[in-house]
């Protein structure tokens, strides 16, 4: 039953988390909760990327005792997605921090975190 292989599980989880994140973003009224949902969304992407890079029973892409320069090609998982994830994580951190800051400002202005209280601009 291939679907019990680790990569399927992680991929499925990633996609599921993606939906969870989206759901949170569009359903939660509280801005902080929205931000949390966003980081769930973000994480789900990381998970997906990693599982994209995974190759069945291969090891980390580092040349050391286990993996030698010569047979690296046959022994390691795909290093590129990992590099991407690294970048993605940092970006996610930045964006989340930014959102929190905005939330902070909005709260200090209107003393509320209900997203639907901020509808002064419309139409």
């Amino acid at each position, binding site marked *: 039953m*291939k679907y019990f*292989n680790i*990569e*399927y599980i992680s*991929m*499925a989880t990633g*996609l599921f988390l*993606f*939906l969870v994140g*989206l*759901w949170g973003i*569009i*359903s939660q009224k509280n801005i902080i909760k929205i931000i949390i949902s966003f980081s769930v969304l973000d994480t789900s992407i990381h998970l997906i990327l990693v599982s994209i890079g*995974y*190759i*069945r029973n291969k090891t*980390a*892409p*580092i*040349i*050391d005792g286990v993996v030698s*320069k010569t047979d*690296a*090609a046959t022994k*390691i998982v*795909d*290093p*590129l997605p*990992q*590099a*991407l994830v*690294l*970048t993605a*994580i*940092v*970006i996610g*951190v*930045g*964006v989340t*921090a*930014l959102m*929190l*800051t*905005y939330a*902070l*400002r909005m*709260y*200090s202005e209107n003393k509320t975190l209900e997203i639907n209280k901020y509808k002064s601009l419309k139409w």
Partner: protein
Amino acid sequence: MIRNSILILLIAGMAWILFQEFSAYHGADKLNSISEYYAKNAPTETGAANLVTAIVVTYRGFDTLGEVTILFLTAAIIGFMISTGKKTDRKPEQSNSELLETASNVLLPILILVGVYIFINGHLTPGGGFLGGAVLASAIILWLMSATGPKISHALLEVTEAFSGFGFVILGVLGIVLAGGFLDNKILHLGTFGTLLSAGAIPVIYSLIGLKVGAELSKIIIVLNQTQGEEK
């Protein structure tokens, strides 16, 4: 009620789209052409044992420059937005527990040491500039929480921040001048594979990145920390 059902509908729709991907997904059993190229040539080309590092710092170094910039931006924006609040030099509301005080005194140097170790060895072992930087930042947090010892000098942070970033760019430019292109690490000698002083400019760049990340994160923390007590 109607609203919720609509939202559920939307999520269902997205689920359908994602399911297309999942149904098309079938793991992988061998490297694709590009990663195979990395596996074969990266060690020799860059001299880095950690292929991820090799990719992050050289092949996709441009992305890395970008993400450093993003951290920098975030820090700048947060500073920009929060600094409009009043500058409170934080006074601890209540004096911290004995435990924290002593523990931090012990831990701080070690944390810093670990952080530096991580990013200096980024090209050999797992980890690298970002992890190292994060560890440094955590050290700063500890420092902030336990108000012992000298205060953190903003000037130092900013100088580090500025010059680490600047240095990164300069190294990149040197790549054009001395070697094969922007952010080429062969501006320094590749050295013997697997030793600390190898992989050309990678350790240097990664250290700069580490410092930069550490500085940015701590700056964010410090600034956010200033707002503490405002909201009460």
